[in-house]
């Protein structure tokens, strides 16, 4: 049988620039994906842009890495700055800061999860709205009867409002979303009033109703109608979470989403050792001298073209092993989700996590100290290093900072999309998404919607992390345009 190649470029309904190439072959009578290459096609060089700046500026600038998870970057950077500045203590200001950060970060999670299912994923299963840009679309099949499809379309319209409302809710304390200026080293700028708290609560209760009564049932419906996707798109099955949402003011606070990892051959979550994380760059457009470095000493020296490199993304590995992150990883590491690893498990875990988080936000709101400043005075030391770990809606996020002479000497950002959409590593192992695509049946090579369903299930955000993946020489069936200088 001939080997066919399909390149999806752009992959739409994601954040940022992604190209995915699949090799398709008929194996045992089923036309399916036999190899995959994911290519991030944007490089902005944030790490370079940050060098020599006031370290406190990192919050404002790194928020702009991503318009969908700005508060996750803000959170990672205030955590790293709090640490380097020695912010601590169990004070009312620290409590207010922790809860306000959690509430605004949480609002962005709800926004992102709702956006992801309705705007980014649902059009893979049913046509959303009968106008451009939701028409035309790839054929999604006719498995849903017209009444059900019409109900989902109504829910899509409701989701437009709910997603927006989640941002309005976050802006009550955040001032503006995306790109709130309220996260600062040492705390949070807003001072909560009773009126603001009550308004936040009004939005939140409506969102809880929507998540419980509409979003989760819609995911269950799609999962039941497209139930083969409970078995498709597993990939390596290695799951990793940095953890997020602090529950107390201690130096090692309890977290709503715990930190840990689970290997595909184990049922137990294991602890993380950050020194086991390295970023590999053999297939990435960065200098080979920077291969296999821990982010604490990582460098970002772009080199394009470069040998077999095909991506602007680095390939983070834990003990040399590829890991997937995201809501499913968090929910399984936390013991909150009992299912497997698949396209539909990812959607289900995401929806269930939205409810879990929204209910926790209700508690945080009731604990929120009113009329209390949320700032602990702090100054940037002459030198220091720190790590800020959190979770973006789509997975583990870390910021590594080194300060020298009160300026940023080194800033490294490792994003969830780097983990999940990574290119092959220096050992030639596929990234988790590439692996998850292997064996996916493809009905129509011209419109491989099945491939799109797998890609969307991991919620790629290439604004955060852009890699380009290029096939190894000699194994290529699809010829890319010539690289400059080649």
């Amino acid at each position, binding site marked *: 049988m001939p080997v066919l190649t399909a*390149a999806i470029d752009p992959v739409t309904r994601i954040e940022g620039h992604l190209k995915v190439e699949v090799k398709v072959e008929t194996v045992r009578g089923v036309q399916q994906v036999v190899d995959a290459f994911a290519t991030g096609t944007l490089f902005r060089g944030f790490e370079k842009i940050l060098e020599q700046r006031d370290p406190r500026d990192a919050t404002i600038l790194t928020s702009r890495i*991503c318009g969908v998870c700005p508060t996750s970057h803000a959170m990672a950077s205030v955590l790293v700055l709090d640490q380097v500045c020695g912010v601590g203590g169990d004070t009312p*200001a620290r409590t207010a800061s922790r809860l306000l950060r959690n509430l605004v970060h949480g609002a962005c999670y709800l926004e992102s999860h709702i956006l992801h299912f309705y705007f980014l994923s649902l059009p893979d299963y049913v046509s959303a709205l009968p106008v451009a840009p*939701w028409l035309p679309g790839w054929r999604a099949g006719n498995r849903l009867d017209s009444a059900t499809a019409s109900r989902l379309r109504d829910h899509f319209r409701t989701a437009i409002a709910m997603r927006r409302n989640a941002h309005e809710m976050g802006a009550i304390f955040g001032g503006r979303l995306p790109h709130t200026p309220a996260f600062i080293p040492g705390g949070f700028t807003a001072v909560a009033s009773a009126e603001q708290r009550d308004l936040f609560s009004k939005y939140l209760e409506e969102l809880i109703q929507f998540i419980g009564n509409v979003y989760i049932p819609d995911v269950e419906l799609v999962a039941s109608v497209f139930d083969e996707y409970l078995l498709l798109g597993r990939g390596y099955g290695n799951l990793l979470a940095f953890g997020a949402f602090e529950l107390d003011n201690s130096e090692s606070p309890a977290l709503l989403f715990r930190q840990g990892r689970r290997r595909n051959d184990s049922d137990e979550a294991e602890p993380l050792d950050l020194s086991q994380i390295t970023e590999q760059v053999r297939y990435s457009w960065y200098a080979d001298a920077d291969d296999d470095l821990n982010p604490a000493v990582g460098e970002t020296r772009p080199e394009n073209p470069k040998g077999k490199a095909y991506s602007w993304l680095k390939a983070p590995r834990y003990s040399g092993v590829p890991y997937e992150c995201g809501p499913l990883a968090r929910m399984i590491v936390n013991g909150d989700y009992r299912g497997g690893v698949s396209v539909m498990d990812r959607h289900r875990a995401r929806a269930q996590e939205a409810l879990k988080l929204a209910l926790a936000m209700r508690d945080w709101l009731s604990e929120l100290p009113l009329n209390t*400043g949320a700032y602990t005075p702090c100054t940037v030391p002459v030198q220091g290093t720190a790590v800020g770990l959190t979770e973006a809606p789509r997975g583990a996020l870390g910021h590594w900072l080194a300060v020298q002479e009160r300026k940023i000497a080194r800033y490294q950002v490792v994003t969830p999309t780097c983990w999940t959409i990574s290119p092959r590593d220096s050992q030639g192992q596929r990234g988790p998404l590439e692996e998850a695509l292997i064996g996916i049946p493809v009905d129509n090579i011209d*419109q491989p919607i099945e491939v799109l369903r797998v890609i969307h299930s991991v919620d790629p955000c290439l604004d955060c992390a852009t890699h380009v993946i290029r096939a190894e020489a000699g194994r290529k069936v699809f010829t890319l345009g010539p690289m400059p200088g080649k």
Partner: protein
Amino acid sequence: MSSVITRRRFFRYCQLTAAALGLDAAGLGLLRKALANPNAPTVVWLQGSSCTGCSISLLNLISDRIGEPASVEAVAAEAVNLVFHPTLMATAGEDAVASLLEAQKAGGYVLVVEGAVPLAFGGRACIAYSWRGREVTFQEVVQECAARAAKIVSVGTCAAFGGIPAAGANPTQAVGVQTLTGRPVINVSGCPANPDWVVWVIVQLLLGKTIQLDENSRPIALYAAKFDGSSAPAILHDKCPRNPGLHGVPIARQFGEDGHCLEQLGCRGPFTRARCEAAWNGIAGAVPPQPHAAHWCIGVNAPCHGCVEKEFPGPKSFYEPYSG
């Protein structure tokens, strides 16, 4: 305009009852084209070296004003024919590119650009799409699309002036759209751009009105006027309710002081021209207890970072008093 809505509602009816009418997706696509109103201008929305934040901001649109689109759905359903938008469009790959190329061939569309244009690595710091196996850089696409556009709108500070990608050492040699193309551009700056401002520009273009621009090609009506259209001080500080000189508000000495002027904490309001006041994440100008009361940075004791300005972010600390 009413005929647009009627036709689109008719189409929606056909879409909802497609099974009964015996229409499949392809048939509906043909029907949509047949019903397309010539008055609904084609809009092509490109994303380059961006964070998608301006698109997300557009999704935050809400309005209760008569004659304005109330939400992003209304923008797409009733105001424009948004044929290409990577974050929203249903189709993907070459089919998506085909929509773009078709619009490009026809010409006369409104080109919206989100994100800066990186020139480094021969433009390969940002690939827009592949066509027939060739990777096409964002730089090429912007130049080609700009050449056949009726109007060009740069949404956000990156597209307008280069913004954050162009900051510091500018590792990707990022530039704004006007710098790249040398063509007249309407800049709707902001990091992100305010959705009301973006839609305001689209409505003006729909109405065929000429938009007066300032020296940075930003609509004067958006950056130096009140919401009712009357003129207002251009400088944010001059209309800030926390201006110490005008309102006797104390000056904050550190964060956590509620309601004070933020000038000593790095506020760039004295150097920023925008109508941000209570204009974000709600209905612009609405205040509690009005529904969807809007917000802004200063309202939560956060200094203005001057994100609408050409100088944003600049090399200076955001935490030191700003002197331009």
